[in-house]
């Protein structure tokens, strides 16, 4: 892989960027749905289901609600999608090419992952729907909620690798000294990231921003057709990329075939968590993230300093 010209375009659009991660992400949403169905004594949809959903949405009418600012409303989904494509490119590049990563790409990645909820907030605010506004404010609050323990948890691998903020160094350190997960601080940090993943994906118990029963799909309420499809695609890609990120940072990267198994394990864990919990209230979620996970995050950081 190269960082220039056509290669870059290929990386961004086909592999591992847009197309590849989209297809894998969509298959993963099927995994999500089939596992949910089996937990609930149902059969679940066929494997092509997410693709049918997507094609249908892409070709349906896209309505811009009255009073919404058209440009922002329609561009917001693209922002999230672009961020995810970049994330995908970056993650794959550093995993297959640990020496080639640049300084601070971990921080870039954190911000890229933050762009997806931001896109939701922007889009929902642009739609001028009171329910979407409630959803947007919830999404924003949730973002502030989980970002603090998330960053604390990410400090753990940084400390363990001796202050590296390059993903490549993290991977190299793990290949040399074993994954960071296999230590007390690593387990705590990984659990925090797992909960954050749940929240970033907008899955139960942290789906209050798109609570269908309370605020009619909240942030998505006014989206239809292609723009909704882009949001769904972004979510699907996140379902692919967030566990991948977790493996990269905590579980030794995906240099070997075991990574696939680790990856599926994380996805199934996320789906099971989704199906065995009711939705939190937003204040409960904030309390959970700040006062429980935040404290655990600090504990993990301290433990990491004393090399536990």
């Amino acid at each position, binding site marked *: 892989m190269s960082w220039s010209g056509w290669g870059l375009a290929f990386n961004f659009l086909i592999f591992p960027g847009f197309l590849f991660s989209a297809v894998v992400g969509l298959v993963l949403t099927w995994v999500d749905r089939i596992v949910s*169905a089996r937990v609930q*004594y149902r*059969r679940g949809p066929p494997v092509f*289901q997410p693709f*049918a*959903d997507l*094609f249908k949405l892409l*070709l*349906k009418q896209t309505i811009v609600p009255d009073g919404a600012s058209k440009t922002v409303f329609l561009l917001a989904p693209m922002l999230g999608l672009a961020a995810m494509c970049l994330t995908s490119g970056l993650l794959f590049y550093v995993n297959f090419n640990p020496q080639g990563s640049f300084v601070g790409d971990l921080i870039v990645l954190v911000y890229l992952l933050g762009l997806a909820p931001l896109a939701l907030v922007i889009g929902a605010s642009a739609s001028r729907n009171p329910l979407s506004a409630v959803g947007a404010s919830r999404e924003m609050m949730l973002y502030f909620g989980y970002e603090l323990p998330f960053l604390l948890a990410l400090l753990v691998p940084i400390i363990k690798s001796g202050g590296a903020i390059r993903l490549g160094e993290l991977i190299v350190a793990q290949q040399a000294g074993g994954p960071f997960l296999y230590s007390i601080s690593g387990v705590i940090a990984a659990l925090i990231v797992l909960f954050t993943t749940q929240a970033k994906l907008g899955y139960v118990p942290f789906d209050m921003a798109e609570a*269908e029963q309370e605020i009619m799909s909240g942030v998505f309420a006014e989206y239809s057709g292609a723009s909704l499809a882009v949001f769904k695609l972004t979510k699907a890609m996140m379902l692919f990329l967030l566990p991948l990120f977790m493996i990269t940072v905590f579980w030794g990267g995906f240099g070997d075939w075991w990574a696939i198994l680790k990856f599926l394990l994380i996805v199934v864990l996320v789906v099971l968590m989704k199906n065995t919990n009711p939705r939190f209230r937003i204040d409960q979620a904030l309390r959970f993230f700040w006062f429980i996970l935040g404290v655990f995050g600090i504990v993990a950081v301290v433990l990491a300093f004393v090399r536990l």
Partner: protein
Amino acid sequence: MSRLGLWGLKKSPWVYHVAAASCNNCDIEILELLTPRYDVERFGVVLVGSPRHADALLVTGVINRKSLPRVMEVYEQAAKPCLVIGVGTCTCSNHMFKNSYNAVGPYDKHLPMHAFVPGCPPKPEAMILGVVKALSKL
């Protein structure tokens, strides 16, 4: 391209449930469709929370003067193309409420209906057949 969309629509009809002065029975049976015994997610049917996401509106009940403008608004908000399927005898003929001062149905006076599923309430199997027949005309 449009054939791909049509295939998608047939394979993944997302339904939004509109009850206009119904007795709740058809509504409950519609929800019943999603539960383990019938599980229409097998066919890609998902109940969505916003009319903007809907491909099919399942309407139930005799429409009354107060709900009529709201139902029409919901239809207008739905992203097109959008099927409208009437569930229950009330939607076809006002059922036993035809003499009521408040019933303004049946639905085909107001909305472009694609199918009716009569019955009070129709059995869930009949509803599935209704949606399938409506889709098979596409």
